[in-house]
């Protein structure tokens, strides 16, 4: 009982927060120079064009200033962030070959078990490198490729070269440039024309080394009519020094293809999560983002959908839960660039114990996007007056054949509703937890089951912990 009175974060997070002793094979020195970048590239035996891309990105990084908007990033000292940490193991497709301490980490997170039950394939990254990658045979036989980015860069060099950092060029912002210079690890997925991947693929990113950065690159290409659900999970143990995550996700959704990209981000609360995600959607294709942000110290994340083919569609379903010491600045960007495109945004946030949740979005409708539709709905729940909840949406509409709606609401748990539930015998805390679970339900039902259960558990624990 006594434990419940301590910070919830500390009981609940044990599966995520427990670090392993640092035991890396190779580590670059702190800070960022052309030598470090060249070292990373030559260590991976990369083609020359990639080294050039890295060095160009480094140069952009040097001349780009931090964003003039959003959360303050003054705590981030780039000279202190170790960019590249290679774990003391190679890549394998057999969990038995993964070193015990690393495997135990993924066991605690439930990855190998989920792989057996409900996934078509799994990738697991530990610090800067992928330690495990596997895909079920039947998927492989249908031509589905699911491997780590380093392997893809060698085996499918031309495909990678054609797509790599084309949706998110290094010039996008400072952390995209940083990513371009020091990226390492991540997953590559290719689904051929007409192939439906029945069960999801899941990549899990684990950052173990203190004070390090993780810069994985995920590239997914769906050919015409293909279907895929991809799940990305992230966590890191808790350290007193800041860690940095600046990953990059580029998704190419072909004609009539559908991609669902689900992310559960549960980084520890010393993480600066400055991630970039972008999808380009062709004619009648669809991207569905499902995004849950629970962890990190600061997050800036705005998955972007470029609806470039006629009839393309995007959905964004997001939830964030900001508690003490957290500033979660999340949302989405949508560019309607073709006729009859549609977008739907549904965002919910909860702020508590001084946490700060910010919803930020930009919906752009270009002149050629006739008959486009967009509907945005944002709801924020404030659980106390020490917390903050800000909604900062922008709509830029450049044609008159459109139907655009935006709704936002801010408020707290209604005392009347709590009373109503209590007259049915439900205790006060449980009533509040029930209302919050109801509030997040539309998002929870979009998540893979084990994550939905995890999210409900998190909500319940937050309530038991807050009053007690």
């Amino acid at each position: 009982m006594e434990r419940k009175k301590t910070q919830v974060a500390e009981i609940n997070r044990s599966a995520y927060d427990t670090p392993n002793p640092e035991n890396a094979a190779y580590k670059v020195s702190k800070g960022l120079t052309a030598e470090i970048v060249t070292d990373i590239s030559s260590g991976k035996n990369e083609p020359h064009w990639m080294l050039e891309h890295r060095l160009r990105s480094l140069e952009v990084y040097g001349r780009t200033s931090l964003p003039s908007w959003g959360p303050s990033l003054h705590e981030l000292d780039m000279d202190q962030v170790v960019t590249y940490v290679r774990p003391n193991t190679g890549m394998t497709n057999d969990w038995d070959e993964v070193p015990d301490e690393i495997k135990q980490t993924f066991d605690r997170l439930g990855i190998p078990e989920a792989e057996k039950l409900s996934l078509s394939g799994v990738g697991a990254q530990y610090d800067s490198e992928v330690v495990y990658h596997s895909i079920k045979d039947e998927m492989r036989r249908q031509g589905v490729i699911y491997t780590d980015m380093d392997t893809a860069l060698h085996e499918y060099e031309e495909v990678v070269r054609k797509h790599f950092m084309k949706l998110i060029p290094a010039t996008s912002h400072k952390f995209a440039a940083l990513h371009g210079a020091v990226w390492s690890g991540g997953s590559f997925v290719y689904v051929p024309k007409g192939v439906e991947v029945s069960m999801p693929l899941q990549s899990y990113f684990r950052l173990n080394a203190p004070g390090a950065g993780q810069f994985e690159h995920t590239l997914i290409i769906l050919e015409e009519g293909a279907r895929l659900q991809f799940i990305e999970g992230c966590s890191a143990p808790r350290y007193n020094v800041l860690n940095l995550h600046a990953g990059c996700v580029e998704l190419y959704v072909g004609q009539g293809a559908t991609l669902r990209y689900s992310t559960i981000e549960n980084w520890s609360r010393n993480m600066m999560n400055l991630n970039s995600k972008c999808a380009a959607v062709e004619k009648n294709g669809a991207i569905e983002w499902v995004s849950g942000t629970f962890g990190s110290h600061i997050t800036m994340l705005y998955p972007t959908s470029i609806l470039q083919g006629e009839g393309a569609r995007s959905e964004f379903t997001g939830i964030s839960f900001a508690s003490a010491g957290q500033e979660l600045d999340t949302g989405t960007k949508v560019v309607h660039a073709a006729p009859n495109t549609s977008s739907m945004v549904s965002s919910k946030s909860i702020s508590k114990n001084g946490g700060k949740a910010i919803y930020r979005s930009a919906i752009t409708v270009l002149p050629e996007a006739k008959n486009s539709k967009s509907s945005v709905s944002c709801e924020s729940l404030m659980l106390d007056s020490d917390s903050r909840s800000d909604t900062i949406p922008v709509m830029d509409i450049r044609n008159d054949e459109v139907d655009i709606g935006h709704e936002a609401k801010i408020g707290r748990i209604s005392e009347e509703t709590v009373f109503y539930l209590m007259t049915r015998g439900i205790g006060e805390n449980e009533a509040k937890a029930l209302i919050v679970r109801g509030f997040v339900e539309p998002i929870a039902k979009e998540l893979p089951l084990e994550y939905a259960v995890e999210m409900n558990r998190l909500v319940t624990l937050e309530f038991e912990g807050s009053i007690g």
Partner: protein
Amino acid sequence: MLTISGLKARVGDSDILKGLDLTINAGETHVIMGPNGAGKSTLANVIMGHPDYVVTHGSIVFDGEDITDAKTDERAKKGLFMTFQNPEEVAGITVESFLRTARFAVTGKSERAWDFHKELLTLMERLDFDESYAARHLNIGFSGGEKKKNEILQMLALHPRLAILDETDSGLDVDAVKTVSEGVRGYKNEKNALLIITHSTKILENIKVDAVHILVDGQIVKNGGASLIDEVNHSGFTALTPSKSIEGVS
């Protein structure tokens, strides 16, 4: 079963109940009538312990236990229940999962989901409630009549010892009043009790009433048997309280 003595209560700065006594025994059906603003709904909310209502004097004793200061959910666990005039809408929780949670809270017994589901469907059929409503979010998108039926459904599912029906018949059409009052009759037995709050009398037609109390300006001004209902129907509340000018029943 329920003994209310010398009850005074206020909301904000205004005194609503001004010294009220009421005793209800097991097996009885009581009716409280009175004009708008007399304090009828306040009484219901005070019995259930609504946080906005402050009891300044008197006590509420239920089954020999003083519950004047008890929390709302504790009162519900002891067997008190009220229907709401405007039931709250709660997004994200289905009627069925809400009722299972509440039933577990009240009885403390875990039941098989399937058994509960079957029982719920039987009750819903009795109330002429389409079974698809079991999977809908609590009161979201329900019509006024459906919300009222849902309140009765909850009453039937939770088996309270004393159910307070607060204006359950208002805003219902003839058929719905009939369904609701059949539901109420199905609930009633010798061990439990009913307190019906109303300012009209439609719902009372098919229910056997043991006692009627007329509430005016926070006090009970007249007690009587079922015949008092006809008296009110005939001459309104004004005739019963000659000293004050009060609007009658329309």
